[in-house]
């Protein structure tokens, strides 16, 4: 199995390089450069040109790419035009916020999906199954940005159970218990909104896979051994039904990224998705580039984790 994991990790390097090249070329294709808009228009054009030469802006693209990548490797994502600060510093806190939002959403997604999928698959074609399947259809049909707004209106404004914006209540000392609780409290509603919608595909995958697996012959073998129904489900059917869920995990990460962009905006949650939208609107290109790079990185790592989970569950894809 280790052989498989190492080999799979090695394949992420070309993916990362390709990602960085694409993002770099797209950034290059955008109009203007680091000096545009930063410099007093009255400055002599020759002086600007001299400055460009000094900053390496006139170098061929591969040299600029090498410069950029070596900066990336040292944690230098450039300067934000708008905030006049290092992109790294700008992103740090938001990245942490989005990370916890994503973790909470994933947690909720699987907490909802596993029991519903298992019940629905085990007792298929019963009333219970129909109600769960009904929920998944509603989930498929509801756009996240509308559902999140409704959740915000009902639980945030009407019932006032949850805060309606931000990532933490003001005036709390970072690291204290109150601070952490406040953070969690701010996370719950956006994470739940996203999970309730995005979990439906996992529920459906799990259901259909269980319905499929329980007709397989090795299940009959297990029953013929004298295994109880509970044991048959837990030991034989469930594990065999997890394969597509594990494979779907990488797509789940991608969904999560697009989901955070909507949800963070709606709940005014200061995270990467919010920053992404703001920086596009404000033409803060170095921030856009950095955020897209991190999103791409997350998607590649999601696929990696997904494959590693698969190899742990399924011996057939391991390399001996």
């Amino acid at each position, binding site marked *: 199995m280790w052989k498989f994991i190492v080999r799979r990790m090695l394949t992420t390097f070309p993916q990362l390089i390709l990602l960085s090249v694409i993002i770099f070329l797209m950034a290059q294709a955008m109009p203007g450069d680091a000096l545009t808009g930063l410099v007093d228009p009255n400055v002599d054009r020759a002086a600007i040109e001299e400055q460009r030469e000094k900053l390496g802006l006139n170098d061929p693209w591969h040299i600029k790419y090498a410069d950029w990548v070596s900066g990336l490797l040292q944690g230098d994502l450039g300067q934000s035009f708008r905030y006049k600060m290092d992109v790294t510093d700008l992103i740090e806190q938001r990245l942490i916020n989005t990370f916890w939002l994503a973790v909470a959403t994933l947690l909720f997604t699987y907490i909802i999906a596993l029991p519903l999928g298992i019940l629905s698959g085990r007792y298929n074609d019963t009333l219970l199954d129909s109600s769960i399947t009904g929920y998944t259809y509603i989930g498929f049909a509801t756009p996240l940005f509308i559902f999140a707004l409704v959740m915000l209106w009902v639980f945030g404004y009407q019932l006032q159970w949850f805060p309606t914006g931000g990532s933490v209540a003001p005036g709390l000392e970072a690291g204290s218990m109150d601070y952490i609780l406040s953070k969690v409290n701010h996370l719950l509603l956006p994470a739940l909104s996203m999970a309730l919608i995005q979990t439906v595909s996992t529920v459906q995958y799990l259901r259909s896979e269980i319905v499929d697996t329980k007709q397989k012959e090795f299940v*009959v*073998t*297990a029953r013929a*051994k*004298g*295994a*109880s129904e509970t044991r048959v489900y837990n030991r034989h059917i469930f*594990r*065999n039904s997890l394969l597509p869920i594990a494979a779907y995990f990488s797509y789940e990460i991608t969904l999560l990224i697009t989901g955070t962009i909507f949800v963070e905006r709606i709940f005014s949650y200061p995270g990467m998705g919010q920053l992404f939208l703001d920086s596009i609107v404000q033409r803060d290109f170095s921030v856009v580039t950095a955020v897209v790079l991190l999103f791409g990185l997350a998607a590649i790592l999601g696929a990696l984790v997904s494959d590693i989970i698969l190899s742990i569950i399924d011996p*057939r894809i391991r390399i001996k």
Partner: protein
Amino acid sequence: MTQKLLEIKNLKTSFRIGDEYYAAVDDVSLTLNKNEVLGIVGESGSGKSALAFSIMGLHTRAKMEGNILFNGKDIVNISPAQLNQLRGDEMAMIFQDPLTALNPLMEIGAQISETLILHRPEMSQKERKDRVIELLTMVGIPRPEYVYEQFPHELSGGMRQRVIIAIAIANRPELLIADEPTTALDVTNQAQILDLIRKLKNDMGSGVILITHDLGVVAEMADRVAVMYAGQIVEIADVFTLFENPKHPYTRSLLTSVPAEGQDKLLVIQGIVPSLQHLPREGCRFAERIPWLDSSAHEEDPVLHEIEPGHFVRCTCYKHFHFQDEAKEAQVHGDTRSK
């Protein structure tokens, strides 16, 4: 002195299709003694496997009527927990398709151990592993310690069938049901697997129900043979009587459909086993395959007649059926059908 191990009385197993129940096994009665091999033969769809699954209680959505007495306990009306105690312990089954009958995500050792865990919980881990290695050796698997940690996809079909047999015999069952154990295997493996089943049966003194559509296998293995057609037993006799002196038209057509030396033409009866929904429920179920026999030849409500000790035949039509003479007619009949 023979001891009765299994006694099936008027078993009827029905499946629901739409709003109605259709019997896949209809009025089947038979007995099996200890240390005896009962062959059950018949075409696909004749209810052989449905009968085997009924005995093991493996049908999840079937209606079962009648009695299956196993060591005096009636399996038809037993609780699931009691059934689970019997399955894999006192009775076990060897499955048809070794490629799908093993869990692809579990090590071989774990799959065999499971049946020991369920029925011999007092065994220590060490004892269990030793027993699994012993079983793997018994079924003729080379390098058992290595195979113990392998997964099904790393083994060949013949090896997997041996693993399935190892699972079945792990707790020395009194009743072993082999559901077409060699159908999916190549000829060399077939002979080896049959030898293995026979040897294990002799060692353990178990009663074996051998389901097959291969008459050669039956001739080689069985003590008695039951022939099934359309969910019913049409003839049952000891193996010599059945091959020497078959009575029922269906049995006789089965026997003549096996190529023999010096025979240049196979005599066959046209038609197929009707599907579950289209079975004739009244009268002789074989009547429509031998339409040239007058309806008076059949019984109105055919039952099994004991024509000599231990030899039962269903319906009276066998008395009027003469295969050699009718065969020509059968083929002519087939020709007209195909036109």
